């Protein structure tokens, strides 16, 4: 039996990996992902350096000078990167323009028209008494580019500092002392102290937040990409064989279940080949970036285990749908609920990234169709799930995988010889439950 399964798997693997479309996808996917990251980096480095002009209506006349001083400091010191020793502007300058308050003019309308005409980017109105903290007096920010948040964020920080300075000036405190008293407390992130396996005390160390969040996200997305580069091939292969009437010849030599296993094994081989390529590339990249120590070796093993489980779960679903349909377009209606199950991990992964041990995270990562992606995500995120959670996840998902393969085998048995109308889910269920 196994020899025939292996024979089918080899043919499936060969026909997939030699297809031009697959080869293109293998090489274009990392290029596309890498390319988009490069584009984003380039845009960040070079893209947005256009001056932002801001009109300031300062009724009291106290705020503008201090705010302009803060802008000058920012524009000369804080908007440059020093990559490779070369100083390059990476952010726009904020250029302030003083507009005298004039009760006879409708300044709000006039400045709004200037914003709409593109002469200025935004304007702020500082009410008289706002700096002194008079109740009801405020500063308002006006723009038509609401999605640009860097400017209001800077204005908020800068105005807070300016107002604090103006208010302190009205007290008897020495400005230098006052400044010292109000200096923000620095908070450094450091790792926990521990005793390592040799019994040696390991002191706190620096934390790389980029890898802390990046490694889990990349691991999960990589798993997603690999699985969904392999699994749709199964659907196409099954439907193609059905359309070309190859099924009857095949099931005269092997049982439908052997055929399904052969196809799944072929898909596993394809995806393992992709893993070798992409994980190899990831290791090389991590080595180059000097962060390879921050990826635990065991994560690779878990990645492969969850990849296998995901492939068998989704592969069974796609194969069963292919067997039940005569045409690719017929498969679309059955794919909708299957796709819903598949994208469950995508609904929850950002929330899990923020709170990996929350009840929501634990529950969703124990939902078998989502476990491969989400438990891998949690395992890559410190502090990681409890051992019992991992054990339970593997147990539940393994059982679910077996159930999926078994049900797909039952659907295969009937579906591959069925022609005509696409079966309903009720019909598929009756095929699964039939003796």
């Amino acid at each position, binding site marked *: 039996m196994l020899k025939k399964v292996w*024979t089918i798997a080899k043919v499936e693997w060969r*026909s997939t990996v030699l297809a031009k479309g697959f080869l293109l996808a293998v090489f274009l996917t990392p290029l596309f992902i890498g390319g988009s990251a490069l584009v984003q980096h380039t845009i960040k480095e070079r893209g947005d350096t256009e001056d932002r002009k801001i009109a300031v209506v300062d009724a009291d006349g106290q705020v503008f000078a201090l705010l302009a001083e803060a802008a000058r400091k920012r524009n000369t010191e804080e908007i440059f990167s020093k990559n490779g020793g070369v100083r390059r502007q990476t952010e726009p300058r904020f250029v302030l323009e003083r507009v005298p308050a004039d009760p006879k003019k409708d300044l709000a309308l006039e400045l709004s028209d200037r914003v709409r005409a593109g002469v200025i980017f935004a304007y702020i109105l500082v009410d008289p008494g706002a700096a002194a903290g008079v109740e009801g007096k405020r500063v308002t920010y006006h723009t038509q580019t609401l999605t640009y948040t860097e400017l209001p964020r800077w204005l908020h920080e800068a105005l807070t500092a300016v107002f604090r300075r103006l208010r302190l000036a009205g007290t008897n405190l020495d400005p230098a002392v006052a400044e010292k008293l109000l200096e923000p407390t620095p908070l450094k992130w450091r790792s926990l102290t521990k005793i390592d396996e040799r019994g040696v005390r390991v002191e706190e160390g620096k934390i790389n937040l980029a890898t802390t969040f990046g490694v889990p996200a990349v691991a999960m997305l990589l798993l997603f990409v690999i699985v969904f580069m392999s699994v749709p091939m199964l659907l196409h292969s099954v439907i193609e064989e059905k359309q*070309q009437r*190859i099924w*009857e*010849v095949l099931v005269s030599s092997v049982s439908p279940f052997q055929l399904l296993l052969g196809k799944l094994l072929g898909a596993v081989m394809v995806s393992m080949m992709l893993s070798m390529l992409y994980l190899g590339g990831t290791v090389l990249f991590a080595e180059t970036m000097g962060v390879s120590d921050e990826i635990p070796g065991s994560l690779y093993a878990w990645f492969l285990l969850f990849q296998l489980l995901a492939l068998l779960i989704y592969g069974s679903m796609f194969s069963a749908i292919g067997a039940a349909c005569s045409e690719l377009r017929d498969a679309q209606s059955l794919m909708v609920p299957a796709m819903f199950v598949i994208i469950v991990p995508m609904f929850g992964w950002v929330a899990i990234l923020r709170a990996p041990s929350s009840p929501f995270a634990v529950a969703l990562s124990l939902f078998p169709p989502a476990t491969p992606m989400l438990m891998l995500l949690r395992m890559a995120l410190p502090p990681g799930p409890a051992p019992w959670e991992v054990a339970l996840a593997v147990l539940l998902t393994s059982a679910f995988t077996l159930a999926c393969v078994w049900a797909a085998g039952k659907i295969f048995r009937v579906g591959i*010889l069925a022609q005509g109308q696409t079966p309903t889910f009720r019909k598929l269920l009756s095929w699964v439950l039939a003796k």
Partner: protein
Amino acid sequence: MSDEPAIKLQDVTKNYGRHTAVDRLSLSVPRGSVYGFIGPNGSGKTTTLRVIMHILLPDSGIVEVLGARGTRAANDRIGYLPEERGLYKKMTVRQQLAYYAALKGVPTDEADREGDAWLDRMGLTAWAGHKVEALSKGMMQKIQFISTVVSKPELVILDEPFAGLDPVNVEVMRSAILSLRENGATVVLSTHDMQIASEMCDFVLMMHKGGKVLDGTLDSIRDRYGADTIRIGVNGGKAELLAAEGVTLVRDLGRLQEIRVAGDPRAFLHALSGKMEVRHFEIVTPSLHDIFLRIAGPDA
């Protein structure tokens, strides 16, 4: 060679919902014979062959193939050519043959050897390295046949093997099938072409509406139906013949009439010649087609 039949079916029934495709069918296929399933489209031939291959499971009855009862255990020793042909278009001819043989447990080198011999015989050697999609329909039919026999099966089941072939390729296929029998294989073929069946088959099973209406050797069938049909030329028309004593059926063939009589044909001739001039008188052996029409009626 074993005396056990290659295939034995006992009271096999297969339903599709409320439709009975095969109805309490029993048969026995002797080893080393060419056994023909004949009958019109929809008579249950293909379903029966699928049941024999265990592609479909019967609702009731016993299926025994090459000594294996109710299992797929013998399937590696069976070559099956389904009615709906299927080949991988992107594979080369040789890869195709090797794959189908491997699924029967035959090693690649053995499959290549046997496949090359068949390709040579069918005049397709030059195409061995070509992709299937480059072949003509007739060539594909031949490749499909070779993929059925490349594993050197003991039992070969061919569902409508002549469908879609031109007369030249029908002869090539007929010769290839008969050579299988010469090499000791048992051949079961289904066809709705009764002429081919009568020329090739040692045994015939006639199906109609899922049931068996006739089976046996060709001679035994003709013996049962062969002595009552006469082709006759007379100076009179159909009405006069129908009025003659003992005539049960008259079929106008144009210059001649074909009639069926009850009783001895010679006595009928003697009686008829006293009433009208008889120009032509011939006792004919009925074809399978005629016998089938007689059994199944005009709705067949």
